């Protein structure tokens, strides 16, 4: 059943876009096909297990932000993105830039499921000579940008978006940012220049899980009113529950249509989503569960 979401279908689901750059409007709502959302929800459950398995096997990594971003990544790779896992550098592909590159296990799990890499390779995460680096790096098929230093992804994504304009291509560029990451001034430099340069093919998604490395964002650095910040920097702002797939998918549809300026989706998420003792727990931003915690987590996700 889930195999129906393997590469072949991914390609079929992503027919070429119309020339006007309003991409895939023809595809909007395709996710409403009977059973699709249930498939994606089941996939999310499986991939949560893959994420924890990956981190536990490595003995280190970032579970919290990988679990909070998962539905966003699934919505992109198994619905919104025009991409071809068999040709990771297809020039016409939509780009997904993971700016919060420490949450690479979430991306790797999705890339494996989409067929960019073999699922077995997840076991090599953070090991010497693995293609799966601690922070996402382009040596992994499907990874666009070298990461690990926060605040850089939106600038890089804007570069990809401006390249599309220069080449008269209609691909879209998505960038996933952490909320704590928005403390970095470069994010606001990029936001300001993206609207100045009218990069309407750029869609940022902020994983608003309210926790950063040490503590809650309200304790470390208050971000609110976050939507107003983005709006004042010239962006169209959409907000959504970042774990509710139907809302997420339809919000991404909205983001892809009637684009006259860059759009940001503020996805309200739960850090550590899916594992009771990891949810809203800063302790699991950057550490692996121990044996006992791992077994408990896998039971919860069984």
């Amino acid at each position: 059943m889930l195999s129906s979401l393997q590469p072949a279908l991914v390609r079929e689901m992503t027919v070429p876009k119309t020339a006007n750059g309003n991409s895939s409007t023809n595809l909007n709502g395709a996710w409403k096909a009977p059973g699709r959302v249930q498939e994606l929800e089941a996939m999310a459950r499986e991939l949560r297990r893959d994420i924890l398995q990956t981190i536990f096997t490595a003995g280190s990594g970032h579970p919290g932000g990988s679990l909070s971003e998962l539905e966003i990544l699934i919505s992109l790779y198994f619905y919104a993105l025009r991409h071809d896992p068999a040709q990771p550098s297809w020039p016409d592909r939509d780009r997904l830039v993971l700016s919060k590159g420490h949450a690479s296990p979430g991306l790797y799990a999705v890339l494996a499921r989409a067929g960019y890499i073999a699922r077995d390779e997840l076991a090599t995460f953070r090991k010497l000579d693995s293609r799966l680096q601690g922070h996402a790096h382009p040596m992994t098929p499907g990874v666009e940008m070298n990461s690990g230093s926060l605040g850089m992804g939106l600038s890089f994504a804007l570069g990809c978006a401006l390249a599309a304009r220069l080449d008269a291509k209609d691909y879209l560029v998505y960038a996933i940012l952490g909320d704590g990451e928005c403390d970095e001034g470069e994010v606001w430099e990029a936001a300001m220049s993206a609207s100045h340069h009218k990069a309407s093919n750029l869609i940022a998604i902020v994983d608003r899980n309210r926790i950063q490395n040490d503590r809650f964002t309200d304790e470390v650095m208050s971000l609110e009113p976050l939507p107003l910040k983005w709006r004042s920097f010239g962006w169209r702002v959409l907000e959504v529950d970042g774990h509710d797939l139907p809302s997420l998918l339809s919000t991404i549809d909205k983001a892809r249509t009637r684009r006259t300026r860059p759009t940001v989706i503020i996805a309200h998420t739960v850090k550590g989503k899916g594992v009771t003792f990891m949810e809203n727990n800063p302790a699991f931003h950057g550490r692996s569960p121990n044996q006992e915690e791992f077994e408990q987590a896998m039971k919860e996700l069984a």
Partner: protein
Amino acid sequence: MAATQAMASTREAYGRTLLDLADKHPGIVVLGGDLNVSVFTHLWRDKYPERFFDFGPAEQNMVGVAAGLAASGKIPFVSTFAVFGVERPFDQLRVLVSQPHLNVKLVCTHAGILTGEDGMSAHGIEDLALACSLDGFHVVVPSDAEEASQAVQAAAEADGPFYIRLSRAATPVVHDQSYRFTLGRSETIKQGNDLTIISAGAMVAVSLDAADLLGQSGVIARVVNMHTLKPADEDAILAAARETGAIVTAEEHYVHGGLGSIVAQVLGQHHPTPLEMVALRGYTVSGPAEQLMVRSGLSADSIKSAALKALKRKQG
């Protein structure tokens, strides 16, 4: 590093030392960038919340604020990972701290490839090239927890900007508490006259291991702990050149701009001597620290081979 050696965390030593300095130096204020647990300043944060400020991942601003605090008479200790504390806000360190010679203490952890699994972007392998290009900065690379603790105290007492480089991994203990750290004066941690291994930081322990290996083949190497890179101890470098006639530098840093560059310049300008450099030749990937060290040639074996090469050149 010999698995048998006792290990201790330089960053934990830093966090605990700060607490000891709190009363003696009421001017000390600690600034963090959302990595306070990792750099052990959470101990200070929880004990002296009013003397602690978090800025999140926004390091340019953090350094700028530190400069303003220092200009107002405070002693700001700024701590995050090396790549985020040196590479990211370099221009602020240059213009706001170094040029006006303000009393900012930058103490960064997770430097070099000992950061291991986090990978390339987390490996600060050029921080010393940057810090040593800042005129008037003191740059200190402690070799173990005891030295780290004393270096932090020295920084609190001395006026002017400091960069102290610490590791993520616990590193071998090479000093007991009887050791006395002197800023700018290196330590000859092992005597010897066949050649000299000059190193700093975690590479001091590796260099001592290399000296043991060399000893087994009858080569008696001197080992100098050049804990202060700026100002470097030129006298010790020149004494080593004169007395041993062959030098090996060993550093957990890119081959340009670090300890090897400093030693090469001193030798060339005052006493040309065969030099071999053990250093990083490029970027590293994710992996266990020990494996990365070996893979990158930062091992006792590679220091030994470099030493034998230097010895051969000395003998002509």
